[in-house]
Each structure stands twice: as structure tokens, then as C-alpha cells.
């Protein structure tokens, strides 16, 4: 059974069709790319999957359950996490605090216990330890006590990934994880994404403009243009597809 599938998913903004009739399929442990030129509707797809916006029509099935109309936090609780294209860290908090917040799903103590600090010390210690472990995996341990805003762009993107990982997802949505990274950082990111998928046994769906990254690590790629799927397949198939070349490079006027 597919981990994620969408059925004729569409989104219309004030008469403009941002996404139309999208059908995505993602299996367990897949690493899939979602690409397309600027304005093709990729982020809109992520927003619909993660519950940030409600699709105009269509369905999202995740892990055997219809999650189309669930609020964002419930979708996260069911095991889907995402990062944001325009980085949405909790800027004035430290990196460690950012990640600790993301362990929210696993907090078991009550409001009353929190107010009175009753038996929460070991819970808190566990959360801190898990958060540090995660930062270690992403190579951010030495940044744990830095304010998130003061990190470099590349590091901020990594913190976003760490934070998404902390919700312990089955499916990770990465929105342009390499944007603003230098080639060296991008290379490291590629290795990291592969490693995360193996070690944490999860599926990844990523939007990315850096074709080296997408072609380098994705097994399957879906290409969107004008909100429609124009191609699907392995990196080689997609790269050779004339419609894709046209969508990216365009055709000549004369």
C-alpha cells in the first residue's frame, strides 16, 4: 500500500488554477523529487499535503487514512513533517529549543504537572537528550546554544530538517532544502538526506531547483508545470523528456 497518494488534487486561488488534478504516489522508503519551473505550483502541493491550506477538490490519503480536511498539527501527529521554502525557524530561540519544541508530539505530561513541575524532570531530560542526538546526526551539535537567527542560511536549513525529524515522521517533505547553500554544503546535504532516509527508515518528497541534487539522489521525479504533471519517471527519463526540456529552457520565439 502506498504511504501517500493523492487523488485529483486541485487548488484554485481567485480563479487561478495553481494545481490541477494532481495524482502523486509515494511508497514506503521512497525518495521522490517534485520539480518544475517557478510558479508551477510545487509549494502549493506541499501546503495542501501538510494541511496548511485546504484543497479546492481532491483527496490526500496518508498511511491509509484520508487526511484531506485535518488541521496541520494533526497531520504532523500522524507522521508527516515538512520544512519551509522561506525558512520558518523560531528565530529568537536557540537551535536546541527549536528542536525540543518539535518533540511536542511525544510529550506525555499534563498541564498541571507542567505548572507544578511535578515529575517532569526526567521527561525533560529525555527530550533534551533526544534533541541533542538529532543535532549530532545533522552535525549541528556545536550550534545547539546559538540563536537560530544567527546561523548561516545553510545551517538554518539544516535546523529546519532537524526540527522536522524531531516530530519522528514517516514522511518528510523538504521544500528547497538546498536553496542558499553553497556547492559544498549542497553536496553534504545530499549525503545527509540519503543517510536520514536509511537510518530513520522514512520516505522523502523534496522540491528542489538544484538539478544536480535532484538528479543525484531521487529515484523518481514528478515534473509540474502550470499546476499539471507533465512528466514522471527516473531522473534519466525525466532529463530526456522533451516536454521537461521545453518547460525549463523554453522554446525559441522564431
Amino acid at each position, binding site marked *: 500500500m502506498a504511504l501517500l497518494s493523492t487523488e485529483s488534487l486541485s487548488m484554485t486561488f*481567485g480563479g*487561478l488554477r495553481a494545481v490541477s488534478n494532481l495524482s502523486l504516489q509515494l511508497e514506503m522508503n521512497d525518495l521522490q523529487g517534485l520539480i518544475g*519551473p*517557478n*510558479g508551477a505550483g510545487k509549494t502549493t502541493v506541499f501546503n495542501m499535503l501538510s494541511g496548511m491550506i485546504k484543497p479546492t477538490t481532491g483527496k490526500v490519503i496518508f498511511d491509509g487514512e484520508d487526511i484531506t480536511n485535518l488541521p496541520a498539527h494533526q497531520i504532523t501527529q500522524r507522521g508527516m513533517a515538512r520544512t519551509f521554502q522561506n525558512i520558518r525557524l523560531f528565530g529568537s530561540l536557540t537551535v536546541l529549543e527549536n528542536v525540543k519544541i518539535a518533540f511536542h508530539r511525544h510529550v506525555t505530561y499534563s498541564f498541571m504537572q507542567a505548572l507544578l513541575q511535578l515529575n517532569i524532570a526526567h521527561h525533560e531530560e529525555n527530550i533534551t537528550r533526544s534533541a541533542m542526538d538529532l543535532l549530532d546526526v545533522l552535525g549541528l551539535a556545536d550550534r545547539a546554544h546559538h540563536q537560530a*537567527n*544567527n546561523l*548561516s*542560511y545553510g545551517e538554518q536549513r539544516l535546523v529546519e530538517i532537524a526540527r522536522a525529524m524531531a516530530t519522528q515522521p514517516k514522511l518528510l517533505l523538504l521544500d528547497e532544502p538546498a*536553496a*542558499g547553500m*553553497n*556547492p559544498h554544503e549542497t553536496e553534504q546535504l545530499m549525503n545527509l538526506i540519503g543517510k536520514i532516509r536509511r537510518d530513520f527508515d522514512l520516505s522523502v518528497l523534496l522540491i528542489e*531547483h*538544484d*538539478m*544536480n*541534487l*535532484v*538528479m*543525484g539522489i531521487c529515484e523518481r521525479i514528478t515534473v509540474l508545470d*502550470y499546476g499539471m504533471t507533465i512528466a514522471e519517471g527516473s531522473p534519466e527519463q525525466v*532529463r530526456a523528456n522533451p516536454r521537461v*526540456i*521545453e518547460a*525549463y*529552457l*523554453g*522554446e*525559441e*520565439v*522564431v
Partner: protein
Amino acid sequence: MLSVQGINVFYGKGIHALKDLSLEVGQGEIVTLIGANGAGKSSTLNTISGLVRPRSGSVVFRDMDITKLPAHKIVEAGLCQVPEGRRIFANLTVQTNLELGAYLRKDKAAIARDMQRVYELFPRLAERKQQPAGTLSGGEQQMLAIGRALMSQPQLLMLDEPSMGLAPLLVKEIFRIVQEINRAGTTILLVEQNARMALSIAHRGYVLETGRVVMTDSASVLAEVDEVRKAYLGG
């Protein structure tokens, strides 16, 4: 006509968007800036038109240093930008949008004449004169954005991704019109993701990668080079 010398632009803390970027645009040319998303194309245009301040470097337009001028003064100098995503005033009518393009001009007769010219160039806009601009289709909005910029009688017209989100047929039409505008005497600096199409109408081009110019040549040469393809689709 326009000379950009070694500009450096930073956003927030430490994001170095443009690195020592230089470029030249000569009178009567169509020059295109191409490159993948995030290469710094829009940042370059925004720096030239005064929306973004460079930390160092200079922008000289027709022997006048405009590096530190506010955006509205730069329009006055004869340089107008059609921003990315069109940015038309959706709540105002098509006609009012065009009138705002001519905001700095006082010659009523000439304004009326230019308005007529814009309507001839884009007959669809003429049909929708009194409609709120927000009700136009994407292609019509792009036409309006270009028409609005033309109303300021620019010496140099800068276009930021005019093809974004438009169907291929419309893109062709827009590019043909850009060519027509150029033939009528307006110099053009064109930022495009759609590299082939941009190169097919441009005289010269600059290829940008992560805030730097990595290659510059005549458009016909760039169209044949493999690097351009790689910059988009990866090697």
C-alpha cells in the same frame, strides 16, 4: 547606457546575494540575464531600480550615478522595471494602472498618445479598460504590467521574468511584443528563466550562478553553449 560595476548585495545576516556583479547595457540593445532560481537575477534588477541597496559597487545610468537614489527618482531618470510577479494594482482599473505608469509626466497630450499606443500594442487591454486589473488573466496582467511601465517613457525597460506562470503561446506573444518595443527604440534588460526564448530575442546575455556572472557572450553563442543547459538541468 547602463553600467553596473562590482555590486555586492547582502540580505539579513550574511546572505551574500550578489558578489562583485558587473554588467553593461548599450543603447538599443536587448540584454538578458539568465540563470537558475536563486542565481541573483531579480536581486540585480532590484538593485538597479533602487529597491535594494548594494553594500558596495556602483550603478551608472547615462552618466549619472544612481546607486543611492530612491526608487522613484530612478524612474524619473528614465529607467523603469516591470517587477517579477507583475505586481499590478489589482484593485484599480486597467486604465488607472496605466495612468499611474505616467505618474511623473505632465504632458497630457503625449500621455494620451502613449496610452493609445499601449492599447494598440495590447488590444486586449483596450477591451478591458474599465475592469479592475485583478480580474485579468495572467497573460493580460503581464501585458498590463509592461504597458504600465511603458507609460513612464523609459529609456531602459527592465523586465523580470515576464514568462512566469504563462502558457507557452502567451509567452511567445509577450516576447514578440518585447522585441517590438525594442525596435521602437527602447533599450531592454530582460531577466528570464526561460533561457532559450530569452536568448532567441536578445543581442547579448549574462549567465548568473549563485550571485556571480559566470559567462557573458552574444546571445547566439550562449544559445549553443552546453553550460547554459547545465545551469538549469544539472550536469
